[in-house]
């Protein structure tokens, strides 16, 4: 029971928990923006924790796992940003209780 063994168990457990929580959030949340909050941020953190934890179990795989993790960190915000713009432009998706809408206001200033 070395220190890295315990740390690897903790990291993989937390990562799997975050991935499960993102699945539950996508399934249960009421509208698109809530779903996106659960489905894109929690999976980024869960992937980082899970991949680095498995890299501690198998140190020879660590570079490739970190490559996957870095790629996810770089690309997931881009795809979620594109999804958020698509959902915002779809007028039927807009929830009734949306109080602050900076994107709509900045669109009005441009024209």
């Amino acid at each position, binding site marked *: 029971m070395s220190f890295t063994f315990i740390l690897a168990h903790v990291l*993989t*457990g937390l*990562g*799997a*928990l975050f*991935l*499960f*929580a*993102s*699945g*539950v959030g*996508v*399934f249960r949340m009421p509208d*698109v923006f809530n*779903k*996106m909050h659960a*489905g*894109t941020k929690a*999976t*980024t953190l*869960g*992937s980082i924790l*899970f*991949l680095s934890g*498995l890299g501690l*179990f*198998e140190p*020879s*795989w660590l570079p*490739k*796992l970190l*490559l*996957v993790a870095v*790629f*996810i960190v770089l*690309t*997931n915000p*881009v*795809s*979620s940003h*594109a*999804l958020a*713009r*698509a*959902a915002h*432009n*779809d007028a*039927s*998706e807009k929830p009734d209780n949306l109080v602050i809408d900076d994107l709509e206001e900045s669109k009005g200033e441009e024209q």
Partner: protein
Amino acid sequence: MVILFVLIGGGLFLAFLRLILGTKATDRAVALDTTTLITTGFLVLVAFLQGRSMLLDVALVYSVLSFLGVLAVARYLDGGLR
């Protein structure tokens, strides 16, 4: 290890259920993004359990292609390239 398998499999199942049942197109796109990311983690877990490092390359290529796919779907829902 069984706990990790059950947790990630359960998250994958719920996200995939939303992808099938999803009420609107943007819901399905968000569920697709989540599903592909959880699948990448699931592939790495299967690679670890079976001790096959080849599946890591599969996971890397899968994450690249899923990023391109989700981006294409999102730009299509946004009204195409402008």
